[in-house]
């Protein structure tokens, strides 16, 4: 094994890798989830809905793996986060899971039976599978910024002391709405590029409305964070180059603490700037440069994930009830060896994944039309 980086550096790299996987998920599967949310609006007839579904049909499955792999990477690199977050937010995650059930079967089964009620039922399923996870992920991010109540006992067993309904507080719900508006916009930018006719027109309209709502809500959330929410700060901990349990550091709450990184590392401001800059440009260019508009939308979505990530760093999951137990990139991580092995796995496989995914998109490029759906009604979704 080649030990290129020290433990502390690897911890930061793994923070970036998990971040990258979440960005990949938000950008790529984001437009699939957004398409699900938009389905009742852009598709008034069965054929129109099939146009929208087949625009994402050949590629959504691979995109979902960004989510699965982000989960797997969290398990491998941040086992304590995986354990604490999934068991703590139990009901929320089970709801996400149940909603996600409806996607693979929804896509594959809806057009296999010629029956309006059957197809409508699956279309609502795909809508729910788009809306619920998008909302819950937003709410979850909102709660991470607020901190959630959990602590560990001497055996490092985690105890979550909040309730499901406590997660649905006003700020977290706002974050949830940001997420829904964002992916609705993103899905619309994707659909306007990949469709024509009525579906295209509705997608352009949806992108504009959802885009403006998203930027306004994102700005509101930013103001709220700056003025009304406490952040957390590490005041002391063992060497970042060593392995230690979360309880061994000291953490304090600080007012407007989540803005500290932005003044300390000035370049991180690029993330929120990209959200607004790319978002507004995408809205402006949607008619003339549809491809550019989609790329700008990707930048805007990536900007949102990074804005939250930069604000929190090095925190991953702050504990509101026992701040010293907060999970951070320094103490929620796997051993040096595991991070090392998995780092090389990512270095080898991620570029290959990006390569073949791009190839698949290239093969399947072009617009999906109602004629195309009609001619291939036996083989398409």
């Amino acid at each position, binding site marked *: 094994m080649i030990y290129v980086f020290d433990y502390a550096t690897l911890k930061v790299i793994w923070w970036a890798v998990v971040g990258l996987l979440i960005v990949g998920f938000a950008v790529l599967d984001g437009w699939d989830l957004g398409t699900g949310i938009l389905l009742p609006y852009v598709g008034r007839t069965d054929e129109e809905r099939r146009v929208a579904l087949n625009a994402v049909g*050949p590629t959504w499955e691979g995109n*979902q793996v960004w989510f699965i792999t982000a989960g797997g990477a969290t398990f491998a690199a941040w086992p304590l986060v995986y354990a604490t977050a999934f068991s703590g937010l139990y*009901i929320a995650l089970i709801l996400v*899971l*149940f909603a996600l*059930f409806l996607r693979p079967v929804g896509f594959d089964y809806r057009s296999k039976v010629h029956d309006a009620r059957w197809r409508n039922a699956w279309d609502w399923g795909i809508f729910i599978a788009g809306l619920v996870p998008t909302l819950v992920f937003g709410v979850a991010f909102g709660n991470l910024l607020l901190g959630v109540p959990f602590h560990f006992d001497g055996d490092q*067993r985690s105890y979550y002391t909040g309730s499901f309904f406590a997660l649905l507080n006003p700020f977290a719900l706002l974050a949830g709405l940001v997420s829904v508006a964002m992916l609705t916009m993103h899905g619309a930018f994707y659909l306007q590029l990949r469709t024509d006719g009525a579906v295209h027109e509705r997608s352009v309209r949806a992108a504009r409305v959802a885009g403006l709502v998203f930027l306004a809500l994102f700005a509101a959330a930013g103001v709220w964070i700056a003025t009304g929410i406490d952040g957390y700060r590490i005041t002391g901990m063992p060497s970042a180059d060593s392995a230690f349990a979360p309880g061994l550091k000291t953490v304090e709450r600080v007012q407007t603490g989540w803005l500290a990184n932005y003044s300390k590392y000035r370049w991180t401001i690029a993330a929120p700037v990209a959200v607004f800059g790319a978002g507004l440009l995408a809205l402006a260019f949607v008619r003339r440069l549809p491809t550019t508009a989609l790329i700008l939308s990707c930048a805007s979505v990536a900007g949102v994930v990074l804005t939250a990530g930069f604000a929190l760093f090095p925190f991953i999951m702050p504990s509101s009830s026992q701040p010293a137990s907060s999970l951070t990139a320094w103490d929620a991580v*796997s051993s040096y060896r*595991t991070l090392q092995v998995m780092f090389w796995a990512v270095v080898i496989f991620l570029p290959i994944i990006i390569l073949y995914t791009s190839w698949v998109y290239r093969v399947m490029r072009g617009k999906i039309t109602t004629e195309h759906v009609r001619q291939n009604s036996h083989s398409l979704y």
Partner: protein
Amino acid sequence: MPSVEVVDLSRLQFAVTALYHFLFVPLTLGLSWILVIMESVYVMTGREIYRDMTKFWGKLFGINFAMGVTTGITMEFQFGTNWAYFSHYVGDIFGAPLALEGLMAFFLESTFVGLFFFGWDRLGKVQHLMVTFLVALGSNFSALWILIANAWMQNPVGAEFNYETMRMELVSFADLIFNPVAGPKFVHTLAAGYVAASMFVLGISSYYLLRLRDPSFAVRSFAVAAGFGLASVLSVLVLGDESGYTTGEVQKVKLAAIEAEWETAKPPASFTAFGFPDMKAEKTHYAIKIPWLTGLIATRSVDTPVTGIKELKQEHEVRIRNGMKAYAALQRLKSGDRSAEAKAEFDRLKDDLGYGLLLKKYTTNVVDATPEQIAAAVDDTIPNVAPIFWSFRLMVGIGLWLLFVFGAAFIILARRQLATNRWIMKVAMWSIPLPWIAMELGWIVAEYGRQPWTISEVLPTHLSVSSVSLGQVMFSLGGFVVFYTALLVVEIYLLQKYIRMGPSSLGTGRYQDEGAKS
């Protein structure tokens, strides 16, 4: 500490969702290769019927694949939601193969599966065959990493406990992937999936042949399935034997339970073909024994003994008592005493720490366990023998029956006597569920036989669960039952609909019953 009810319901939920997931996995594993075979023939001969075969069986593959993906996400989620302490305790090792599964396998499979269905008109013949091949490769790699993870739960090599972080940590990645349990388990499971897929194609083709529907389509499918199935069922049996051998080496308790071997018999041990194992009396009633067989299979020698349950219990009692000392040494380290002596004491005893943790079920302090509590923990180390004993025998019986079915189908086909041997088609049709039953039983032997551990001799099952409430687990379990029942009804409805439609569902105009509504 989690309550007994939470532990039991979490186990039930994992068992139900895992067994359910494995209804769909085998067909994905095997049918993907059958598609590769059919499409290869198409590419080589250029005959359209083979493309249609690939497309039709591909449709059934797709209906099944969607369920595999749906139920697979559940498995990943559950480690975090319901088995949080497990995830913390062994995530450093166990998480790695799961992440690799995503990076190396699931991405490949899922990215190309869309192209398999929608790329026919956009790709060249060879390109499309490559895509089909990559889907098969991805799904099989996926099984590889999952089974490496599972093998590590059976035989946790290449890892060590770290008292600073209170968890197991990776010591050797090579040991993890070259775990002696992993290889045979992987090939055995994979080949079992191939058998299931072959049985599926063989049985459905037989259904068409018996009704004289599209015979040229059906007989070609029958031929592919018979050949692939025969090769696979032979691998299953050979690798099952190899699995039995490695189990004999590293999981003596599981082997003893499979064989209901209460006493350490004089080698070579005999095989109990039939009987009623009785946990209380520690004997098997009405046992019918075949001399030598167990000894030969498990030890591949005539003079190595197979350790009996009574003797294993004595060994376990020693290890539990050592485990109490290991736990005391760990407490000493945790209290801040990092002297060389304290470390040496813990290092000397730490291999038995897991046995000490078994006592946590009875006393949280472990070190103050009474002799009664120790005796109870010793009893816990032996899983319930009867279900394992019976599951194993049924599984092997089905395996031998399937060898007969594929062997007969292959011979009859090779002699071109299919028309005069209609019985084999009826047998094939009615044998379709058997591979699934055998595989579920196989998992019961493997996982129920691992109890009381999630990680053999390292982490007891009752400690592995999350600190969640009973209500939460009931909510999720109820949801799974509702969703999974509904989805199964839908899936079977669609499968039988498309099976009845046959190749006419492709809408090519070349097959019988075309024009029937799709």
